[in-house]
């Protein structure tokens, strides 16, 4: 068969291919990615989109957990103060009920309990970042207010809703406990208990002081029971955060396997394609200098 007398076409194609391979390798080395556009590996890119979205969600769930933890910790420490105050009220009630005191002493104890009651009101109306913590979902206004008709009576004006916040795909936690489940539970109402203690102390009747002291103690127990919710939820959030950080790590690892360049391979490819390009160029220049018959026909 007759030999193709024109090499240039072939040479150009070969140089083109070697150049292309070198460009690819250089791009992989400089971006650190094997996949730089959807056409490089459509399936990997499509998977990357899904993983990016998952990673963003995980970040957001982590941020949600963080801010919830702050809120819940604030509520929890508020309830610690509530517990302390109620314990003080109980011991004041015990003191007042033992019958050793004269009315003036009882009055000053009643005075102190009254102070506890107003502190209690301010604690029950604790807000965090402008949101009332114990108002159910009616977080825009103070949940505990003095009854307009009977100023000594404290009314709950929040609702009994709990807010669910997502902390994972298909996983959510209750982010609050309404005041109705803490301070104003039926038969264990903090404010009613304190008010009855004040009234009993002022009346000086030992048995009603004792009854009122039992009522305050009941409300203390009720608050303590409710408080378990906060500790439990914070624990759940902490566990969830460590799960999320593991999840994030898994996602990142998977993303790396999807699109990251294997640096060693890319570097080897770069060298190999450069060698190929050099060889082709050298061959092309050789062909260029190749003698032909005309050189000998003088």
């Amino acid at each position, binding site marked *: 068969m007759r030999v193709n007398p024109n090499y240039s076409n072939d040479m150009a194609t070969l140089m083109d291919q070697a150049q292309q391979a070198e460009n690819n390798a250089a791009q992989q080395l400089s971006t650190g990615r094997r996949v730089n556009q959807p056409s490089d590996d459509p399936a990997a*890119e499509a998977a*990357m989109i899904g993983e990016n*979205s998952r990673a963003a*969600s995980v970040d957001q*769930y982590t941020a949600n957990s963080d801010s919830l933890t702050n809120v819940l910790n604030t509520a929890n420490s508020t309830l610690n103060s509530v517990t302390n105050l109620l314990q003080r009220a109980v011991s004041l009630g015990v003191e007042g009920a033992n019958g050793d005191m004269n009315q003036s002493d009882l009055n000053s104890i009643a005075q102190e309990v009254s102070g506890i009651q107003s502190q209690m009101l301010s604690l029950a109306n604790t807000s965090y970042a402008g949101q009332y913590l114990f108002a159910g*979902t009616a977080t825009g206004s103070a949940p505990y207010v003095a009854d307009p008709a009977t100023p000594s009576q404290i009314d709950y004006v929040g609702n009994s809703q709990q807010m669910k916040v997502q902390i994972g795909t298909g996983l959510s936690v209750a982010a609050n406990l309404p005041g109705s489940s803490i301070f104003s539970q039926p038969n264990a109402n903090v404010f009613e208990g304190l008010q009855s203690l004040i009234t009993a102390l002022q009346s000086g009747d030992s048995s009603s002081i004792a009854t009122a002291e039992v009522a305050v103690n009941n409300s203390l127990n009720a608050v303590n029971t409710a408080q378990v919710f906060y500790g439990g939820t914070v624990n759940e959030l902490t566990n969830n955060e460590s799960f999320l950080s593991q999840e994030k790590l898994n996602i990142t690892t998977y993303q790396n396997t999807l699109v990251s360049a294997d640096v060693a391979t890319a570097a080897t490819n770069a060298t190999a394609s450069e060698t190929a390009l050099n060889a082709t160029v050298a061959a092309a220049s050789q062909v260029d200098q190749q003698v032909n018959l005309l050189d000998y026909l003088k």
Partner: protein
Amino acid sequence: MGLTSDLNVSVQSLLASTTAMDVTTTNMANMNTPGYARRRVVLEESAPNGPDQSSTGVDVKTIQSLRDSVLDLSINTNTSQQNLNSTVSSALSAVQVVFSDTASGSIGSSMDSFFNSLQQLSTTPASGSLRSSVLTAAANVASAFQSTASVVSQAQQQADQSVVQSTSDANTLLQQIAATNAQINTAQSLGESSNSTQDQLSSLLSQLSAIMDYKTVNSSDGLTLTTANGVPLVVGSKAYSLTNQLNASGNNDVYAGATDITSTIDSGSLGGDLQVRDQSLSTLSSQLDQFAFQFATAVNNVQTAGSDANGNAGTALFNPPNTTSGSATGAASSISVALSSGSQIAAAASGGAVGDNTNLNNMLNLQNQAITNGDTPTNAFANLTFGIGSAISEANSNVTATGNILTQLQNQQSSVEGVSLDEESSNLLLYERSYQAAAKVISTVDTLMGNLLDMGVTNPGY
């Protein structure tokens, strides 16, 4: 017989050698001319002279062009394929950027941010600043849809402009092919050589194959060109000129004479532009519209089921896409945010308090529901990315594959039709020698004739 016939034979030989050298120089001169196939002179013994047929000269029978028309044809077919795929690849490459996972402000990433801003708001539904950031994120989703739709429609317009340009280029070539056909016809009817015109025709056909595919039939009045399904493009010396006419969607269709041939062109750069414009991007554009429409509708449905920060019933978050009823066409390019204040976001269930996030949770659940193109929003976007990526990568591998075939075919073509300087130089030597030999014979005959004439002369001088 005799000196005179020797002289005649030598003169014939001189002429034949000259013609052969002409062919050789033509070959050398055209070694790089596109469409040129090397030629060779075909010599034959001339009719013998005299009764004993002792002296027989040489005649130039013909000058043959070494064209392999089957090879030319398959090169043209492959060139068409090659151009189809490279056109598709480069046109779509401009579009794939906005579907990349690293593209900032892509539909996918802006939707992630939108859902994240809802997540954030769900922890503190009453927060004014978080409500505002949801609106901002929603506006980003809308503008991501708009800019993506605009990238797609720009690429479509560019393809359309290329269609117009290619139509006019193809038109010029068809006219030239018809003219060449006429020349070949004339030459053949006069019994003249049409080698040069054939070379031109071959070059024109290969240029046309870069633009579009066609079928050729050899008929009595020269080459007939038709589209793949038989609509005539060139018949003899008549070219059916290609024109553009706007179709219903505002794009240019291609007509040959009065026939719409748009859908029959499926190769060459024109075929590529048409495929990009009428198939790839047209599909992509309607998928985007569906996507935007269904996403907006789903969000609006949840939004209108809840109550906003002021206790009012929620109103649509996204402007109902500016579309004719029931159709999503144009949704992606016209989607926008309808709310003016973050307080209008219906975070609460209907009638719920300001701190209620029930409705937000419903909206967040959309992220994992098959609300768009039968898939979750993220997967719907990933599917678009996969679609365009694989279209380009398929075109690219076709370019490589046809490129390899084409190189192989061109090598073959060159080995048959290509001019080799070595070969031509050695031919030149041969013809030079035979010219010199013929000249030598003539001078010998001259001497002999001189001797003959001198025979009767006294003192001939030697």
